[in-house]
């Protein structure tokens, strides 16, 4: 359904205010009762939701801060510090939670602002363990105040993984509990952590594992979640299994008891079961020489990766950005959405805004796909050229930041 069709369905035009759209919907509801005419009702509802989405977005687009473009232009030479600033910026911006506008004059909100800034400063200084306690307190507070600005949950997942990496279990448990409670009341994990599911899944695994798990294994698992060093971490785990066979067996038992896919996988790496070993051995029967050749290659590769992995493990001050290269194109996506809206291309506007959100979130897996989709959409020639160029830039940026993964 296009915007024009939706407007026609509601019998209103482009100049309509959001409140009038609601009146039109309520009036037409009597003609398409959900009881009597389910199809008509679904069409009406879809039209109403589309119009609300566009009208609501229009407010957001025009209210975007004018310096957003300047900020991203300054990010041409991204440094790791810049990435922390991103997380902190998302965290400290007084973004209202879904539709509920905070009353700016009230003193409580000002005090919250102070608290958020304090936490932001700690995060900026890489003081994860010190930031955790106030962060947990803040979530406890936010549970009771639905209109308080929400901290960025992704930053919190990062902090959680950091804490597990450093073996600070009691603080991690405390933060985990407060965070879960907040998630539960703020609309569930799904809405809040969309696009961040794997990291969150690993953080939860770590929270559920007993404290008797060896700290080395815990650190490797946390690294698998926090940064994009997934493969390195897995190789580290395999090496750990060979260094201390007895310990690895004990840890594998703990992990298998957990029973989830990720835990089982880690357990398999630490101490493969008899069946898994047999499967690994199979090629040996076919060609002994090839096996030896492949194995020595693997060991060399593993050693190399392990040495780089341990290097970065000692370097706690380094921060891995979510994908900073992508941020500079976010404002372009937003501008495209604005112009698309002016040109009456509702679909393009919506998709471009989604792309903007993905780029701000640094989602290098989804953003290129959406960028391609935006480029493929029908639009006037000038917009088409711009969306194609944007698509190419996004592809490049995403590729670059996946190359830059340490």
């Amino acid at each position, binding site marked *: 359904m296009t915007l024009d069709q939706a407007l026609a369905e509601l019998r209103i035009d482009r100049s309509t205010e959001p409140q009038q759209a609601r009146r039109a919907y309520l009036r037409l509801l*009597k003609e398409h009762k959900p009881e009597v005419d389910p199809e008509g009702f*679904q069409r009406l509802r879809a039209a109403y939701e589309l119009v609300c989405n566009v009208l609501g977005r229009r407010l957001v687009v025009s209210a975007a801060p004018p310096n957003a473009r300047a900020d991203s232009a300054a990010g041409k030479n991204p440094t790791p510090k810049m990435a922390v600033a991103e997380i902190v910026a998302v965290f400290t911006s007084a973004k209202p939670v879904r*539709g509920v506008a905070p009353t700016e004059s009230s003193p409580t909100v000002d005090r919250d602002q102070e608290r958020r800034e304090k936490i932001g400063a700690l995060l900026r200084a890489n003081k994860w363990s010190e930031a955790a306690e106030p962060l947990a307190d803040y979530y406890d507070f936010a549970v009771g105040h639905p209109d308080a600005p929400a901290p960025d949950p992704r930053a919190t997942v990062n902090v959680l993984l950091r804490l597990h990496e450093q073996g600070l279990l009691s603080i991690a448990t405390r933060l985990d509990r407060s965070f879960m409670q907040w998630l539960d009341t703020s609309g*569930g*994990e799904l809405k809040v*952590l969309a696009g961040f599911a794997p990291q969150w899944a690993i953080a939860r695994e770590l929270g559920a594992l007993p404290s008797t798990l060896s700290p080395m294994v815990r650190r490797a698992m946390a690294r698998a979640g926090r940064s994009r060093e997934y493969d390195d971490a897995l190789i580290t785990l395999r090496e750990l299994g060979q260094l201390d066979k007895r310990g690895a067996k004990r840890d594998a038992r703990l992990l298998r008891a957990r029973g989830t896919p990720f835990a089982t996988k880690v357990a398999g790496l630490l101490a493969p079961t008899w069946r898994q070993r047999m499967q690994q051995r199979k090629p040996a029967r076919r060609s002994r020489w090839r096996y030896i050749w492949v194995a020595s290659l693997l060991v060399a590769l593993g050693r190399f990766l392990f040495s780089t992995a341990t290097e970065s493990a000692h370097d706690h001050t380094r921060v891995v950005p979510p994908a900073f290269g992508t941020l500079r194109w976010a404002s372009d996506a937003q501008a495209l959405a604005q112009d698309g809206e002016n040109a009456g291309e509702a679909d393009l506007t919506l998709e471009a805004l989604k792309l903007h959100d993905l780029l701000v979130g640094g989602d290098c*897996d989804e953003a290129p796909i959406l960028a391609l989709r935006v480029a493929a959409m029908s639009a006037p020639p000038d917009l088409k050229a711009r969306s194609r160029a944007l698509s190419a830039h996004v592809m490049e940026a995403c590729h670059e930041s996946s190359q830059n993964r340490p």
Partner: protein
Amino acid sequence: MKTIVGIDLGTTYSLVAILQDGVPVILPNALGELLTPSAVSASDDGTILVGAPARARATTHPTATAMAFKRDMGTDRKLHLGSRAMTPQELSSLVLGALKRDAEATLGRAVDEAVITVPAYFGDAQRQATRDAAAIAGLHVERIINEPTAAALAYGLHQRHRELRAVVLDLGGGTFDVTVLEIIEGVIEIQASAGDARLGGDDFDEALANLVADRVKAAHQVDLRGDPHAWARLRAAAETAKKRLSSDACATVALVDVLRTQEKRLLSVEETITRTEAEEAWAPLLARLAGPIRRAIRDAKVAPQAIEEILLVGGSTRMPCVARLTAQTFGKLPLRKLPPDEAVAMGAAVQAALKGGDAAVEDLVVTDVAPFSLGIETSVPFAQQRAEGIFSPILERGTVIPASRVQRYSTVAEGQRMIHVKVYQGEHSLCADNQLLGDYKVTGIPSAPAGQESIDVRFTYDINGILEVETTVVSTGKKAALVVERTPGRMSKEEVEVARRIMARLKFHPREALPNVTALARADALFVELSGSDRTLLAGAIGTFRATLEGQREPEITAAREKLLSLVLSVRRSE
């Protein structure tokens, strides 16, 4: 015009109602009472008792009586009724059957169709089980609606010319539901609903019973929880005490000769509980009320200050501590504009009238939302690996129903010919933490590199809250639909027919005899609790009544029954 009734099939009580001249009216049962207890009991000769007599037998024959079976709907658990094992559907069908007969007797015409309410948090399996129960009882279900929506309807019926935003809190015997609604231009728009499927008045009774049992254990070293008879009597006494605490500052739980101690001495219990002590014991339960309230308000995207009216329904909201908690949360005094026990049934009657095309509600429109998210299991690419078991929601909670949503998914492996579609319901990011509704395999996908082939998954959630899933292989256009195979407790058409025949063969006490059976059961239940002269007096009255029943002369029986009941009442009152 066909007659459609509205039925509130509750955890502790059930009601049947109908809209007459634009006003919802509750239809009384054979005893002239509006509330029929959701209880089924088997007497010693195998005859089945439903309602008040069954509930009265719960203390005297705990193992032959089933109550609160609504909590087991949609599972394959069987409940034992003496020597007979029955499914929750069969037990519910007996209650529905009793309500149907009551409605027919009052209205003087056949009743074959009904609107039945279920808790908003009932999933697909539980809704289907409720339909099955109705089918066994010989009722066609015109519509299943959510209990909070029904309560909102009963409330909105008289407010429909106003414009306001309200919250309906429904704390019943077994479930807790919160609904945020807006009434505007004659439309009742449900904006969000949340709840706790296992939090209700029964839990408050149990907390109180545990408090007493702990005290008895400390004083006498015996555990009342170990003996089913003693525990059933304690639960019943705790419920009475809870009700008394709603008006008084303290209540006494007195049980005579409830259990033998280790020295074979008969033990009697008398414990006084103050309201403060009770509220301390209830603190964890009261804390659980806050979560769903916050969640519903967040989902509806309103500030607590923007709520204009708070309405309490459900018998358990009579407790002062519940009202206090609500007032603290919203900063506003809650209202009790409807009889708390009857609101849901009244709403069901309004819905039945809407369905039947009653002119009195012609201008009323209701829209409802999906109370939980529905989606499928997926693998998410993550670095060069895949994270398995990630929940991908297709229809998010809060979506206005009926609704249909479609999403495209692609293959993850090269040459993948089959996709396993596993349908889940819940709010967690991992499937393992959500509830599996059903699964099936989409085959016949052409062999291609990973990610090249895709399927469209369409979820259609109808107005009854029942889900249909359809998949289409994009490249071939091949369609498949979900046929839920054997989720626990689900019955096929044939099984429903078999259960229907079994239920029809059961022996029931005739409806006319119900007052007598109930009076006897109530007297028996009181007899167990009494001691001394009262007990002798009651034993005499019961004996006389039994003898009169043998004589089968109606006026004498009625007189003896009245006498017995007035004795029971006077003893209870003097307690």
